[in-house]
């Protein structure tokens, strides 16, 4: 068998670490002979490997800057560890800077999702419209609400490369979190897809999954998915609940169903989803979500123990 997928043509000053779903992808820019910048740092439990990946590619450079596309725990979980190890300055999108300073874990969504994140501090703000010199090229910060109201994307017009975070993946996009709380998110996500279509990137580096060049096809799939979710907001809520459970299973691998239910009962998003959309006993929401994950082969459940299933 022969297949001819070429290696994606990345500029030599840019390295993409394709991670899984628990950690977002990381993009390393070699800025000059002495310094480098990292975009997104993955989940907290993967922080040692994230640092090892960065160090393996520095060739004597120092990591001097870390940028976050948004402050979900799978994108910023390695911040504190990498800041401590390298002394890099951290730039975050505007919107949650006060919450970061106070370390308000409710506003920062870590507690609401049942996830963890080491406390970090920020130095700079990634203001939409500003240009950042990364890997000897200019990148523009674009506001990208939808999946998360405070997310940004990074756009390089010269090479037509988009770092899309969770606004566009090759097969879909991140769940629309604002909508589960009754705030607008579908309209913003639609505007984001329109914006990406206008930019017409040659290459998209998504927050999860492989970099891709068939952007029109990805946009087509995303439009379809968004139409289905907008028509049935409960479906978006169900998807978010399942994604958060799968995320937790990827981290802990297996645990008794009762323990899972107890852990998630402290996570505000599950309670909000249940109150707004389902109004069933809390354990029923979790059990139903687990069964749906089992049905698609993303989890196993035997003798009261829930386990992650790969593939």
């Amino acid at each position: 068998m022969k297949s001819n997928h070429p290696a994606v043509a990345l500029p030599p000053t840019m390295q993409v670490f394709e991670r899984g779903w628990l950690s977002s992808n990381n993009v390393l820019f070699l800025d000059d002979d002495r310094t480098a910048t990292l975009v997104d740092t993955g989940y907290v439990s993967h922080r040692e490997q994230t640092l090892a990946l960065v160090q393996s590619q520095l060739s004597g450079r120092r990591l001097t800057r870390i940028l976050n596309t948004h402050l979900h725990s799978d994108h910023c979980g390695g911040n504190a560890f990498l800041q401590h190890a390298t002394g890099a300055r951290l730039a975050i999108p505007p919107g949650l800077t006060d919450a970061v300073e106070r370390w308000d874990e409710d506003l920062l969504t870590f507690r609401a999702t049942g996830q963890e994140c080491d406390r970090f501090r920020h130095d700079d703000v990634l203001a939409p419209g500003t240009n950042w010199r990364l890997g000897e090229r200019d990148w523009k910060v674009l506001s990208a609400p939808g999946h998360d109201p405070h997310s940004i994307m990074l756009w390089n017009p010269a090479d037509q490369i988009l770092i899309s975070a969770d606004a566009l993946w090759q097969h879909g996009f991140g769940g629309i979190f604002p909508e589960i709380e009754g705030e607008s998110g579908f309209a913003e996500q639609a505007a984001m897809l329109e914006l990406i279509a206008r930019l017409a990137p040659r290459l998209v580096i998504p927050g999860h999954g492989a970099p891709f060049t068939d952007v029109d096809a990805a946009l087509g799939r995303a439009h379809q998915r968004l139409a289905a979710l907008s028509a049935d907001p409960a479906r978006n809520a169900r998807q978010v609940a399942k994604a958060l459970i799968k995320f937790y299973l990827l981290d802990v691998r297996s645990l008794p169903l009762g323990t899972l239910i107890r852990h998630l009962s402290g996570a505000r998003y599950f309670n909000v989803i249940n109150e707004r959309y389902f109004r069933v006993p809390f354990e029923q929401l979790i059990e139903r979500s687990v069964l749906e994950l089992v049905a698609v082969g993303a989890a196993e459940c035997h003798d009261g123990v829930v386990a992650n299933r790969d593939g």
Partner: protein
Amino acid sequence: MSVSSSTSSTLVPVPSPCISVCTMDPRSALCTGCLRTIDEIAGWSRYSDADKQAVWLRIAERRARG
């Protein structure tokens, strides 16, 4: 998986071996999840499909060796 004689680029791309475990074993210097070296994980996005298939074969050998 069906074998195609086509040489077009429409075949399914080689998937990443990552299973979201992402912890290095200090003795083997391999990821305990996907059994890749740090260089194999870092370099994945630049590899051709042939390179990626070679990594998958090395993973299979490592798994067989235990």
